[in-house]
């Protein structure tokens, strides 16, 4: 049982993305974190990735046609690089990182564990309130599949090695070169599922990310070497994540990457390593062909390593049949030993976004366990600020690594420039250079070019503060007009640099205004993710108001019978609601919707429409958990023939015992998904269909069940279900997007015809029921909510995270978070984790006593003010008022920085910091000179 006086020190094992996220969230919340990393540096698998983002926008960056006649300046979007996170973890005062270290032993219980840490050189003991295991999975050892020639032929690489090749290609003067002879490969092949979905070797589950990273690596390779053609051999294309389907479509359509069904089962070498031969089946004709490739990439899966088994033994926690850490679904965080939590891939393979979510959720779990353990944060000490009033502008210009020297030449000629630094890297090394040169050259303006300002402002401002320079004397520019990554003509890059420099020279010191944090949360939507977010926040000690537009809480769970992993959702929901009702800190308001939100992070005020009228609620954070809805099909005679039903109808009917036991069932996948209208994968419908098929077979093993699909996307551990269904004799037939199955109603049956792409033959099925796997569509209220929150939705009507990979639960607006189906289709397990993750992120704000207000606000020069009241009249937020001196004054915390008053002030007494008239005019002056 929990100790009376729990320790506030938390031990995290494994410094990958999930461990880092957990560490940061906990440290921000006020815990003292010990992060133990087994290797020589934190970052895990993700630090070795060239890029990690899989959004459709990505790599739009350059595109294979990117190279024009003109000399192009590579302008990478660093949005998805790990560096800002690494720096944050390494410099956070609440986090101690131990490299090359491991947990050696652990005893005690929640609130008071005693752990021994050791490395080769030292050993230390510490008390810890809780432990998070985030030691990750390892890439499959390709030598175990010797037929694929890894280790035998130099040009057979694993995908991990190929990432390194891409990093080399991306370096200045680098090119894509194959290892054997440095030649640019003309043809590259990817082989999928190496060491995954294999009952003999590696893992029998699906590694969930490799289909997507293969597409990513292929596209990136094409941008570095447009003349290279690439083929990806696969079993099923599993593009199940947010925006992944579009990403894959781009790979096919815009990058000309060829996807071929069917895996060559070996790689054959040629004399002198001239080429590698693969044998495959031509899908259309059925012919077997041998083709030569210059490079073969093995898409290796993520499998548990020896270290995970060892860790489990040391910590005394159970593993599953897959040797993954055992959790109790739908929970993905709590292990079977109280006080020990799991985060990241250790409970099942996933991408960075999910690993991050699990990290935040683990942090929340710790907060729930020992809420009293939070400390008042140690204030970081900064050197006193340098006074720069009256000084001449001394500007330093820093150019990102990889930018051409020509730019440096231009930089030197920019007025006020006293220092130019080339080759600035995004990590700690770069920051050191920055701090050192600012001090040495006594810089008072800093311009950093070649970085995304949204991502890097924070890190670089912090560096300025550390040297005693006001953090707002900084400008970060991405060098392209739109700030998007991609090649930029050199001439344009020079212009952008000059324009940014003009703005920089006019910067003035600014100060944040502090205000107290309202320590309560508002959660919108009481589905499974919202309920879990609310519970977690309440258990961490924060009051929560949970609003639900329907008259009852529960969301889609009320219409669901089972999760795909087989858990009955009814009892689960009942229990969940009981917990929520029993939690005094939660106020559930049904029949209520959000009307308006105003204020800033830590100090929001919302108008909520309740059955008893509008109510005003003050809260520090906001969590959106609005869910999504089911697609109502118009295809396949749905609604016309009662034998055509949806997957959810089927589940309900079976649960009610009203579904006949002897009928033949045909299921059709991707109804309303992966279509022109909804060009995304609904992620859950394959597992749902397979689950229902298993249940149908369990009722009566002799009945026939056919699943007609385009790809079966039982990603991750759901692959077990797919195998179970095949074992049970469920028939899976694959059709092509262009040749969907046809259905013809007869009096006593439904005649289904499908062209099976494997047999290359038509199959006529006589069925009794047709079950449609209907996809997800974004909630109807999203549009309205987005309007209320001043945020944008993606093309499909779902919410968009501030940053897909490392901040999957954060909204663009600080202090607002989101979770569950409103972001993208999610299984119940994922929705639960995301709910908790949002709570973990939110707690990091709620735990603070005060926050700083936004610096971008209007200020009045009282000497100029003519007290005309224009500003008072025109401000939409009533920020300006006339003070005792009879002059206008702006309430910094209320002002939102729109600048309306500024442009209307007849006396030009107002100005908007960070976007002053001087800055705009100076920038236009630069253009004038061109």
């Amino acid at each position: 049982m929990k100790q009376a006086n729990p320790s506030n020190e938390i031990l995290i094992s494994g410094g990958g993305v999930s461990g880092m996220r957990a560490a940061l969230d906990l440290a921000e919340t006020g815990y003292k974190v010990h992060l133990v990393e087994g290797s020589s540096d934190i970052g895990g698998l993700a630090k070795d990735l060239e890029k990690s983002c899989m959004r459709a926008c990505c790599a739009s960056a350059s595109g294979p046609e990117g190279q024009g006649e003109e000399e192009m300046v590579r302008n990478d979007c660093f949005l998805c690089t790990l560096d800002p996170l690494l720096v944050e973890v390494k410099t956070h005062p609440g986090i101690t990182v131990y490299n090359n270290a491991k947990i050696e032993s652990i005893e005690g219980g929640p609130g008071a564990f005693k752990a021994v840490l050791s490395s080769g050189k030292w050993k230390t003991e510490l008390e810890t309130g809780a432990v998070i295991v985030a030691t990750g999975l390892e890439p499959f050892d390709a030598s175990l599949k010797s037929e694929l020639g890894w280790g035998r032929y130099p040009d057979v690489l694993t995908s991990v090695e190929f990432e390194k090749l891409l990093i080399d290609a991306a370096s200045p003067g680098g090119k894509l070169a194959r290892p054997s002879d440095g030649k640019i490969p003309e043809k590259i092949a990817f082989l999928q599922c190496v060491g995954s979905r294999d009952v003999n070797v590696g893992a029998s589950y699906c590694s969930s990310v490799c289909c997507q990273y293969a597409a990513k690596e292929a596209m990136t390779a094409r941008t570095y070497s447009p003349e290279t053609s690439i083929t990806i051999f696969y079993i099923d294309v599993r593009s199940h994540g947010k925006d992944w389907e579009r990403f894959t479509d781009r790979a096919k359509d815009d990058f000309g990457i060829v996807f071929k069904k069917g895996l060559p089962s070996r790689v054959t070498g040629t004399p002198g390593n001239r080429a590698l031969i693969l044998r495959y089946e031509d899908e259309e004709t059925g012919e077997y062909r041998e083709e030569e490739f210059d490079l073969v990439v093995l898409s290796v899966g993520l499998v548990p390593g020896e270290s995970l088994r060892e860790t489990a033994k040391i910590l005394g926690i159970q593993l599953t049949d897959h040797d993954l850490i055992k959790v109790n679904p739908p929970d993905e965080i709590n292990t079977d030993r109280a006080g020990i939590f799991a985060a990241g891939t250790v409970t099942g393979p996933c991408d960075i976004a999910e690993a991050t979510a699990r990290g935040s959720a683990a942090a929340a779990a710790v907060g729930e366990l020992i809420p009293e353990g939070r400390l008042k944060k140690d204030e970081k000490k900064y050197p006193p600020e340098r006074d720069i009033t009256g000084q001449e502008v001394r500007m330093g210009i820093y150019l990102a690594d990889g930018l051409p020297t020509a730019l440096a030449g231009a930089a030197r000629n920019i007025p006020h420039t006293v220092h130019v630094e080339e080759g600035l890297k995004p990590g700690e090394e770069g920051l050191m250079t920055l701090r050192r040169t600012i001090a040495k050259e006594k810089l008072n303006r800093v311009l950093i070019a070649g970085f995304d300002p949204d991502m890097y402002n924070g890190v670089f401002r912090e560096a300025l503060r550390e040297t005693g320079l006001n953090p707002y004397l900084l400008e970060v520019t991405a060098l392209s007009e739109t700030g998007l990554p991609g090649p930029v003509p050199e001439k344009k890059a020079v212009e952008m640099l000059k324009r940014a420099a003009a703005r920089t020279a006019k910067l003035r010191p600014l100060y944040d205004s502090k205000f107290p944090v309202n320590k309560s949360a508002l959660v919108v939507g009481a589905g499974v993710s919202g309920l879990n977010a609310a519970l977690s926040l309440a258990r961490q000690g924060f009051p929560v108001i949970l609003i639900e537009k329907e008259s009852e809480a529960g969301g889609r769970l009320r219409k669901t019978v089972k999760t795909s992993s087989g858990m009955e959702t009814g009892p689960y929901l009942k229990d969940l609601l009981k917990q929520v009702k029993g939690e005094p800190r939660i106020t559930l308001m049904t029949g209520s919707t959000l009307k308006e939100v105003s204020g800033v992070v830590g100090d929001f005020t919302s108008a909520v429409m309740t059955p008893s009228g509008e109510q005003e609620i003050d809260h520090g954070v906001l969590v959106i958990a609005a869910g999504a809805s089911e697609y109502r099909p118009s295809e396949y005679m749905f609604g016309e023939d009662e034998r055509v039903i949806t997957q959810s109808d089927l589940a309900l009917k079976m649960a009610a015992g009203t579904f006949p036991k002897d009928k033949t069932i045909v299921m059709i996948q991707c109804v309303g998904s992966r279509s022109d209208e909804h060009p995304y994968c609904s992620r859950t419908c394959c597992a749902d269909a397979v689950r229902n098929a298993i249940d149908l077979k369990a009722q009566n093993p002799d009945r026939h069940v056919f699943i007609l699909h385009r790809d079966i996307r039982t990603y991750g551990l759901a692959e077990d279900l797919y195998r179970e269904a095949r074992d049970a004799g469920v028939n899976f037939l694959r059709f092509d997007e262009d040749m969907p199955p046809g259905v013809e109603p007869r009096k006593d049956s439904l005649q289904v015809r499908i062209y099976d792409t494997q047999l290359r033959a038509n199959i006529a099925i006589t069925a009794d029921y047709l079950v449609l796997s209907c996809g997800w569509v974004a909630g109807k209220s999203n549009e309205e909510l987005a309007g209320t929150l001043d945020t944008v939705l993606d093309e499909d009507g779902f919410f968009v995270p501030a940053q897909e990979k490392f901040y999957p639960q954060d909204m663009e607006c600080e202090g607002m978070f989101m979770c569950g189906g409103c972001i993208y289709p999610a299984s119940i397990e994922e929705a639960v984790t995301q709910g908790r993750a949002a709570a973990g992120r939110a707690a990091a704000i709620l735990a603070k006593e005060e926050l700083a207000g936004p610096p971008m606000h209007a200020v009045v020069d009282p000497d100029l003010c003519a007290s005309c009241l224009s500003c008072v009249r025109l401000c939409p937020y009533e920020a300006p008022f006339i003070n005792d001196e009879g002059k206008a004054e702006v309430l910094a915390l209320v002002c939102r920085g729109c600048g309306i008053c500024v442009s209307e002030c007849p006396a030009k007494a107002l100005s908007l910091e960070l976007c002053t008239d001087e800055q705009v005019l100076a920038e236009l002056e630069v253009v004038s000179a061109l």
Partner: protein
Amino acid sequence: MFPEKAVLSAPVDPGFLRKVREESGEDPSRCYQCLRCSTGCPLSSNMDYTPHQVMRLIQLGQKDEVLGSDAIWVCVSCYTCSVRCPNDINIAHLYDTLRQMAVREGYEIKRSQIPIFHREFLGQVKYLGRLHELMLMGFYRLRAGGLFDDMDLGYDMVRKGRLGLLPSFPHGGKDLKRIYDYAGKEAKTS
């Protein structure tokens, strides 16, 4: 909208799948069509149905297509497919069962030489306990035709002492007869 190719109807009696599973101990329904078997098979381009297609046909209960196929006789039992199948289906062994079923159930066998050869081989072993290569070639030629096909090769081999002219004395005593009787009895009951 569909290309005019063979139309197979489903569902058919699932008994075939069950029988194949029981008799072979292998589970073809496990197959998820990765095609590793077929792309690795040295003779897939000579088969009317490639190994993964045979798995699919068994799953669909297409007994006539499977047992009447040429593919099961083209297979040389090299086990490449078996060791590369990620679902641990011992396809080569499954094919043994299919061939046995095809013979037993009187399906027309397109490559009749193959079962003749095996019958000759096992016949010799039954009576002599060991095999006599020259005799086997002789008998086989007699039954399957084309007696003189390999004669010059055979002559060279005899000349070089690579083929013995005389068979050895019988081996294995009564054991072999009993083994054959047992096997014959078992085959009938299945």
